[in-house]
């Protein structure tokens, strides 16, 4: 009798309890041997952030849901997450999906992801179902996130995407290379780039700017129809709705975005009624809360394959709407997971569904030689300068979390120290890998936290009131009780300033008790010197990665007394874990 995946993981957990702490058994067969189901297999990756090599990535210990989102996926962390999804503590899955005992798990189960390992798994799962019965979809943030992707403006990732066999994708950070570079990348991309929610501005339309459909103003193809398993499956692309707000507008001056669920509804209706498709998939970069709301309003979508918020959710969430039920998923980040959606599609209807979010345990998968060769070749001219150790990690360095992470603390320390300011701000990005305590930190690691097309640092004079306004604004983007008003990032990180936050309050009332490092309260009318990076306004300072590297090389003692964020009114919220 073949050992099924769940059994294997149980066995691994049991062995651990015996005290021997074994590494993963080298039997990918048992973990990745999926029972055949249905007639169409859709594989989904998202938010890999160009991590071509296997990574450590610690999932958050704080991912709060407020209002109706409280206590519901994806706003569960730690033990509450394990309980909700029936994952055994101490198992490989517990390591992959949660922050619990991360460093211990990292020793036992190793890194996850890597495109050569992903390629092996993708090929295997596509091979299992045979030709013409599968699709590989990517939800965006595929071409940004490493020094290599940044210096090559995503071109390296186009090659990797082609070799991986991505049939269709949508985008977010892909847009931050600007239209010219994006278009040249798309010319070389063998799959289809789909986005129903990107339109020409009126000015650009008037000037006959390039568009997929000049009549509607849609810049990109909104959807594609693929025949798989003898059925017609429509895939609609939904790009990140807030590109010109979350990033400098100068990268996409001719395009406007938005959620645009009314246009989406028309598109779905057309695919159903005119094109007579049998299934409709939305490939979304909305973020999970937005997708859950959208699923309650837009009818006719069978499954939303979601990304952006980097939530690794093992099971789809079923959302009822006037037309039936839509399943909503989110497939994690940084190449850690491969989602497998097996569909049993009948005429005009999905009869049944099976979904698995498989952690890509690098140690269980033999790297695909062709992909490994491509990665080595692409890295060779650039990576030489980046592999030397510039410091050792003095503690576990990670980013993900609603309010703070040790890596961002390091970045804030570097900004304050090198740019000589009292306060530092660092954006609440959700990408960026994890470095274990004692491991060497290289320039490549620093770039994996900072590689954006607008890395310039700045020093600004801001009043206390202005600083509070910025914090309130970003906090509302995170905790607005209506997901359509959220943008999906985490809270801006602070150096030199502690504060209290009441997430359940309204905008303007969440932030209080702003206190400087010296213990003095931040005064509304007083001016302060503030350093930062990744501003949506154009800046000219030294790129942040050089500032961080310089700080690390200086050998200044690390600052472990990070200014705290005191959370209020979150008692009992399962989006916060004490077991970090």
């Amino acid at each position, binding site marked *: 009798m073949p050992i099924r995946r769940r059994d294997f993981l149980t066995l691994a957990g049991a062995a651990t309890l015996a005290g021997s702490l074994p590494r993963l058994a080298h039997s990918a067969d048992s973990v990745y041997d999926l029972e055949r189901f249905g007639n169409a297999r859709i594989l989904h990756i998202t938010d890999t952030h160009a991590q071509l090599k296997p990574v450590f990535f610690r999932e958050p210990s704080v991912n709060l849901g407020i209002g109706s989102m409280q206590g519901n996926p994806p706003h569960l962390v730690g033990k509450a997450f394990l309980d909700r999804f029936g994952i055994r503590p101490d198992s490989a899955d517990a390591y992959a999906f949660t922050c619990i005992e991360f460093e211990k798990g990292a020793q036992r189960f190793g890194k996850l992801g890597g495109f050569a390992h992903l390629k092996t798994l993708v090929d295997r799962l596509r091979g299992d179902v045979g030709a013409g019965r599968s699709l590989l979809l990517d939800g965006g943030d595929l071409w940004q996130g490493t020094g290599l992707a940044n210096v090559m403006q995503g071109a390296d990732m186009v090659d990797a995407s082609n070799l991986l066999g991505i049939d269709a994708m949508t985008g977010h950070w892909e847009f931050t290379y600007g239209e010219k570079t994006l278009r040249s990348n798309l010319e070389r991309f063998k799959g289809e780039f789909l986005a129903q929610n990107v339109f020409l501005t*009126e000015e650009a339309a008037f000037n006959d700017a390039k568009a997929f459909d000049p*009549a*509607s103003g849609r810049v990109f193809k909104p959807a594609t129809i693929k025949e798989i398993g003898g059925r017609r499956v429509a895939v609609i692309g939904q790009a990140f709705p807030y590109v010109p*707000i*979350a990033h400098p507008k100068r990268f996409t001056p001719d395009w406007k975005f938005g959620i645009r669920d009314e246009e989406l509804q028309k598109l779905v209706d057309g695919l159903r009624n005119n094109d007579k498709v049998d299934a409709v998939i939305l490939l979304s970069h909305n973020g999970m809360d937005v997708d859950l709301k959208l699923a309650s309003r837009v009818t006719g979508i069978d499954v939303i394959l979601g990304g952006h918020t980097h939530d690794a959710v093992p099971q789809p969430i079923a959302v009822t709407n006037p037309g039936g039920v839509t399943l909503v998923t989110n497939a994690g980040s940084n190449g850690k997971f491969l989602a497998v959606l097996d569909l049993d599609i009948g005429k005009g209807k999905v009869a049944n569904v099976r979904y698995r979010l498989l952690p890509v345990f690098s140690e269980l998968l033999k790297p695909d030689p062709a992909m490994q060769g491509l990665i080595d070749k692409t890295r060779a001219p650039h990576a030489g300068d980046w592999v030397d150790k510039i410091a050792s990690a003095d503690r576990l360095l990670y980013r993900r979390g609603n309010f703070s992470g040790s890596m961002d603390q390091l970045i804030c320390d570097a900004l304050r120290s090198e740019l000589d300011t009292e306060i530092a701000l660092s954006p609440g*990005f959700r990408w960026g890998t994890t470095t274990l305590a004692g491991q060497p930190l290289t320039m490549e690691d620093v770039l994996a936290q900072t590689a954006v097309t607008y890395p310039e640092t700045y020093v600004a004079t801001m009043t206390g009131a202005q600083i509070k306004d910025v914090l309130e604004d970003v906090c509302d983007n995170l905790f607005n009780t209506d997901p*359509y008003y959220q*943008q999906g990032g985490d809270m801006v990180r602070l150096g030199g300033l502690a504060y209290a936050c009441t997430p359940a309050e309204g905008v303007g009332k969440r932030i209080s008790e702003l206190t400087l490092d010296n213990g003095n309260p931040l005064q509304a009318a007083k001016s302060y010197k503030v350093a930062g990076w990744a501003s949506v306004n154009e800046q000219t300072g030294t790129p942040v990665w050089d500032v961080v590297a310089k700080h690390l090389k200086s050998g200044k003692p690390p600052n472990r007394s990070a200014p705290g964020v005191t959370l209020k009114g979150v008692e009992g919220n399962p989006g916060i874990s004490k077991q970090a």
Partner: protein
Amino acid sequence: MTRTDNGFSATRRLVLQGAGAVALVGLGNLPFGLTQAFAANDKYPEEAFKQKTEADAIKSLYGRTAEASDKVKMDAPEIAENGAVVPVSVSTTLADVTSISFLVAENPVALVASYKIPAGTMPNVANRIKMAKTSNVIVVVEAGGKLYSATKEVKVTVGGCGG
């Protein structure tokens, strides 16, 4: 805006939007010619354009209050890409529409624009409005002598920090 399923060409829609923009520009510093145009049809509603709250502005403009109606369809972004030019459009299936007005509750002056709709005109107006900060945007449609409205919050943010 971008839809052409109402049978009009995209070019025609652009012309209409252009007209809306001109009317808006006129509000800050109303040129003499435009005042004359208003005057020819109706008196310029000077008092309404001085009111601080949307309720007072509607009262001043129409002398009545509006009731919310799902027959008034407003298209506005959830989060503005640029608070200085927020695209807001309205269409309605209501019959006998005589005017359409746009208000921003949190602006220093609530009433942004008011359009007279001549008989036989499609009740469909798109314009861009300037918003000081996050606010409810209200559109009021006068039809058959009654007032109907739709409201949507549009967020104006400093931006940055996307995932």
